[in-house]
């Protein structure tokens, strides 16, 4: 089913509402069931790390590129890790070519928040000369096909790409000139993290919403949980609200789902 706009016919909406109420969703899933997940790492050989994630029919690629850079002034002894997201126009009739819109920016920032606060990447080990030279690690998310739940697919993709990423070794010639060598070492990893996204439809929460569910949802909540069962990021989205009970329910149910997702990730470091 494809929609030219983010508008769903009333009859379509009624069908999804009814399905959610009955406990079996339009694609046959239970309310707290994920679609099939496939993670292919090393998909792009030119990148220092990459992962192609299929979450049902949602397809996302994350690629990691490493450059020599300068640290932020307030963290002179830490490397730099940046995440961007691109909504490629191949992915949806609603995506247009051009600079990232607010949805792409939100996606990049939420995935960034989860990975940053889980302290997944050991940024201190990315420092080469304090205050001057550090590794700058760019993770870029490309959404290839949008069938809902870009948040969780993108987190899986960036985390899987980072877990399998390699850094070039370096040597310092003269005093301050850093040169990258051909030999590669793994990106230093301290933790792993997954995000769990719930959509609120017809006063019920369903996990891993697909596109037709996202179109009719009132609001959504994304919860980032690391491998030590710590909550590291939360983002409510959408133009509707969540009840206090919804927040409690989503939080409660997300820990097990996060553990399941983290199990599917490659072991890192």
């Amino acid at each position, binding site marked *: 089913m494809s929609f030219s706009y983010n508008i769903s016919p009333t009859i379509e909406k009624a069908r999804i509402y009814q399905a959610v109420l009955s406990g079996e969703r339009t694609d046959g899933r239970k309310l707290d069931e994920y679609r099939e997940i496939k993670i292919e790492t090393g998909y792009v050989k030119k990148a220092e790390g990459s992962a192609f994630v299929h979450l049902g029919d949602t397809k996302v690629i994350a690629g990691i590129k490493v450059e020599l850079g300068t640290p932020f002034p307030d*963290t002179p*002894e830490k490397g730099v890790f940046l995440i961007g997201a691109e909504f490629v126009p191949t992915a949806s009739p609603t995506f247009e070519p051009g600079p990232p819109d*607010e*949805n792409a*920016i*939100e996606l*990049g*920032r939420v995935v960034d*928040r989860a990975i*940053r*606060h*889980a*302290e997944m990447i050991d940024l201190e080990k990315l420092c080469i000369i304090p205050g001057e030279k550090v590794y700058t690690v760019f993770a870029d998310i490309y959404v290839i096909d949008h069938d809902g739940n870009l948040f969780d697919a993108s987190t899986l993709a960036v985390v899987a790409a980072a877990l399998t990423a390699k850094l070039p070794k370096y040597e310092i010639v003269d005093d301050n000139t850093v040169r990258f060598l051909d030999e590669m070492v793994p990106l230093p990893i301290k933790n792993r993290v997954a995000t769990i996204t719930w959509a609120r439809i017809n006063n019920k929460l369903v996990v891993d919403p697909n596109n037709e569910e996202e179109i009719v949802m009132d*609001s959504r*909540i994304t919860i980032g949980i*690391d491998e030590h*069962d*710590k*909550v*590291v*990021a*939360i*983002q*409510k*989205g*959408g*133009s*509707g*609200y*969540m*009840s*206090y009970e*919804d*927040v*409690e329910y989503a*939080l*409660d149910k997300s*820990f097990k789902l996060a553990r399941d997702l983290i199990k599917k990730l490659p072991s890192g470091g």
Partner: protein
Amino acid sequence: MSDSKQKIKLIDEKGLRVDGRKPDELRPISLKVGILKQADGSAYIEQGKNKIIVAVYGPRELHPRHLALPDRALLRCTYRMSSFSVPERKSPVPSRREIELSKVIREALEPSIFLEYFPRSAIDVYIQVLQADGGTRTASITAAALALADAGIPMRDLVVACAAGKVDGQLVIDLCDEEDKEGEADVPVAIMPQLKRVTLLQMDGSLTKEEFQQAFKMALSGCMKIYEMQKEALRREFITIREEVLKAAENNENKNNKEKEA
């Protein structure tokens, strides 16, 4: 977030915070409604060292017209920090942070407005941060709800926001700039207080499930305190307006009576 090497002490021996507050104590808040002449609705908030102006224009004609929604008004929200609002000059080019905040603030306000009353039109909310001191998004939402009410836009409830967080292992509410930067977690929450609905919920940092639940509860109680101040600010403004209207009516009547007598 937390940097173990150069950690500043955020909670002292007496359990007080960097600005002398108790863990569950809000910063001083002052709210003013109707501060701008040209806007349809406006509000000003000072919360700690935060100074934020909010203007609401609309419901009004929507440009560009192709954005119009057939069944409701389009709510647009622009959150911007002034270049001088922070220690290092902020470039006036909209940052990714400002774009995300504009979006989440819009989504925090949207559930409270009867947008379906004004199809094909626009309601614009402009938020200008003049001085930033941590928690600008929550302060902005608190003020924006007042500005919407001041514009006479029909609302289901006010929206009020407050953050909770963790600093030096202690759960606290309404984090100031230092606590926000050096602390372990920040949980901004916005609610519709009468309807008990969450319209904004974000978190960054690292908390256990129990800590998050406690922080969420603390943020809600902070919201309820600020809600009382919001109502008071509206009452103050509209009692003055009511007095003005009554006075004008009285003058008018006197004038009419005089004309009749003459």
